[in-house]
């Protein structure tokens, strides 16, 4: 088990650095970092002086090597844009994103899994239809539109919730719903399909035949097996929420890590983008790993293999 974990960890680090090298090169291709840094008001001479100041005139490989050398020592440098240490900048933004991500995925799981189970128990019933409708709507609705609709209804018309910001838990209600609703359909469909599949299997018939209560059959026997692919999916969705909640963060003015990444790319803020990419790829790796462990706990067959 330990060698397995170590192997995966080694691989993860390699993946992270490959990703970081590719993103570094892409940023250089995407535009002149000195021009981006100088901003729209800069003259040609301003840009040249910045280029020298930050060493953008050196070969790209040398600059990457420089960054890598410091990064390995845990020094992610200073953001070109904010002139603040990247580590503290990201830590501050991540707290918002993590809160949002955890709330979002919990909302998605807490609504999608029960709905999926209910839909599977009575296929083609009214519950199934409603669940289907909800998931199609969730898939079809762009989150920027859904977000604005929620703002119009709950912040402007009813005045119940603040339209944007992150200064209290209440501020997270609408973003959570928008972000969670986006992840919900896939989880629900997968739960429903898994449950349908499991419920028609032999051991469920056996369990029912021996007189096990229905609740126990559904949750202990069926759901435990049907949920395994859902756990893997939720892990990926969680990674996506942490890195990709750009639209939601932008609409609700949340200033999280996803929005920071998006803006930093446009600003060619290399140290920030590089550090964020490392963090995001680590998230994916960690969540997939946790999902595997969780699945191994759920399914003893996975443990032995």
């Amino acid at each position, binding site marked *: 088990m330990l060698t397995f974990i170590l192997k995966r960890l080694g691989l993860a680090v390699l993946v992270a650095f490959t990703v970081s090298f590719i993103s570094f090169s892409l940023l250089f291709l995407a535009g002149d970092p000195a*021009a981006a840094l100088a901003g729209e008001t800069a003259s*040609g001479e*301003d840009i040249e002086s910045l280029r020298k100041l930050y060493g953008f005139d050196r070969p790209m490989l040398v600059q990457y090597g420089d960054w890598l050398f410091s990064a390995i020592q845990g020094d992610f440098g200073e953001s070109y844009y904010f002139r*603040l240490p990247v580590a503290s*900048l990201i830590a501050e933004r991540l707290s918002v994103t993590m809160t949002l991500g955890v709330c979002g995925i919990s909302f998605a799981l807490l609504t999608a899994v029960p709905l999926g189970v209910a839909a599977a128990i009575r296929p083609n019933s009214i519950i199934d239809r409603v669940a289907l409708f909800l998931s199609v709507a969730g898939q079809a609705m762009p989150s920027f539109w859904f977000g604005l609709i929620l*703002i119009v209804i709950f912040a402007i018309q009813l*005045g*119940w919730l*603040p339209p*944007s910001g992150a200064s209290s838990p209440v501020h997270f209600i609408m973003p959570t719903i928008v972000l969670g609703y986006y992840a919900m359909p896939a989880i629900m469909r997968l739960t429903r399909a898994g449950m349908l599949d499991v419920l028609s299997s032999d051991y469920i018939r056996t369990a029912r035949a021996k007189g096990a209560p229905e609740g126990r059959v559904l949750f202990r026997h069926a759901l435990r097996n049907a949920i395994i692919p859902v756990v893997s999916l939720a892990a990926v969705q969680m990674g996506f929420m942490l890195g990709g909640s750009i639209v939601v963060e932008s609409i609700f003015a949340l200033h999280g890590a996803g929005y920071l990444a998006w803006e930093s790319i446009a600003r060619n803020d290399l140290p920030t983008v590089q550090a964020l990419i490392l963090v995001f790829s680590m998230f994916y790796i960690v969540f997939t790993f946790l999902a595997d462990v969780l699945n191994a706990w759920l399914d003893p067959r996975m443990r032995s293999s």
Partner: protein
Amino acid sequence: MTSSWLKTSIASIALIAASGAAMAEKANDTLRVAFTKELENVDSYFNSSREGVVLQRAVWDGLIYRDPVTNEYKGNLATSWEWIDDTTLEFKLREGVTFHNGEPFNADDVVYTVNFVAKEENGVKTQRNVNWMESAEKIDDYTVRIHLKDKFPAAIEFLSGPVSMYPDEYYAEVGPSGMGLKPVGTGPYEVVSVVPGQHFVLKKYEGYHDSPKGAPEITNIDIRTIPDVNTQLAELFSGSLDLIWQVPADQAEKMSAMDQFTVMNESTMRVGYLSFDAAGRSGDSPFGDLRVRRAINHAINREELVNALLKGKSKVIWTPCFPSQFGCVEEAATTYEYDPEKARALLAEAGYPDGFETEFYAYRDREYAEAILSYLNAVGIDADFKFLQYSALRELNMKGEVPMSFQTWGSYSINDASAMVSQFFKHGSLDDARDDQVLADLNVADSATDPDTRVEHYAKAIERITDQAYWAPMFSYNTNYVFTKEVEYTPTADEVLRFTTMSWN
């Protein structure tokens, strides 16, 4: 933890629901404003954005102040100034001024600030705001001299704009990063808190000196960054914001029909123009031919662009500078009336009876660029439209690989023609005209101390640039300010929000 979180949530919802839409904060004497862009650093020497200028004018003072309406220069931290010679300015400083942290303002602060920002290696972001200064010298506690590198008559304008005075001891201790997090100045507002890029809280500085900026009326200013303009509007509707600006024309029109908001439109100094590769830096291009450049000038219906797209206080512009700028002589510019027939004839004369193909670049205002594109198509020019990130286009510009592009320039709110025309026509890396005659005139105009000589030579340069149609200047920009009826404010044409001139109705 969960249960307390839940309790807080429910309590807060109940509270908000009970109070209905939050009322405007007039009662608390707090004006709530939204920024669209994340400001990089509050230290005004280390940002280059509009938001930064707004905070700079609130937190710090310059030696000189320019009245935004009359354009008259008045003493601010200096009470008087005189040119000792062509490259030396002497200032008498105002006595009894203190910084927000209690440090008294005197010659040492001026000397430290100037010497720090003038040094290129200290990395001030917009070098041209400061790189004309060589150093500063203390004569006595309240007399100081600034030595210029070369003759630079726009010095007074720069000293009334981007050059503000910092406290020497504090700045030496904390540097630009520290100044960005806890700014200290002599300005009408002191900074209470900064969350970098996100939230800025200001408070009226009780010890503010008798400055031409005027004494602030509103006690607290609370600024949040809200990137999405729709969200800003929602905040305004729900009563949790009092003032926003840079509102798109269509939204502003709808808002102006509503009783609870005031919508005001004001011009900005930003000019939109087409730039042609007249010098042939991008290889063999049709733009080397004067008739082609004139043809495009005739092909564009500027009136229509202004009336249908930009609206508000935008105007048709014929000069390679903003008309209010010193030296930007409108009469010197050649105008090209909208005449697609004439454009086609000129193209035919130049050897392109069926038009030609070219690349056309832009980096902002896609809808304007597309409208321009349709005018070009109408006279037979088949343009391959490329919309790039600003930094990517600048890189191509500097390498001279852009045959034609839609550009804009805001002059950093500097009311002097040198801030625009001299940035682009002095054979720098962004100069696609490379005209020696223009260079010679601009060199005189930029450095002459006699105002009449300056005007004369700027006029000559403008005449040459527009006669040769190196650019097709098109229009000035405008911005919409929307605020609640409780706020009283008259925006100025330089797009600087001045909190000191705001009050409650």
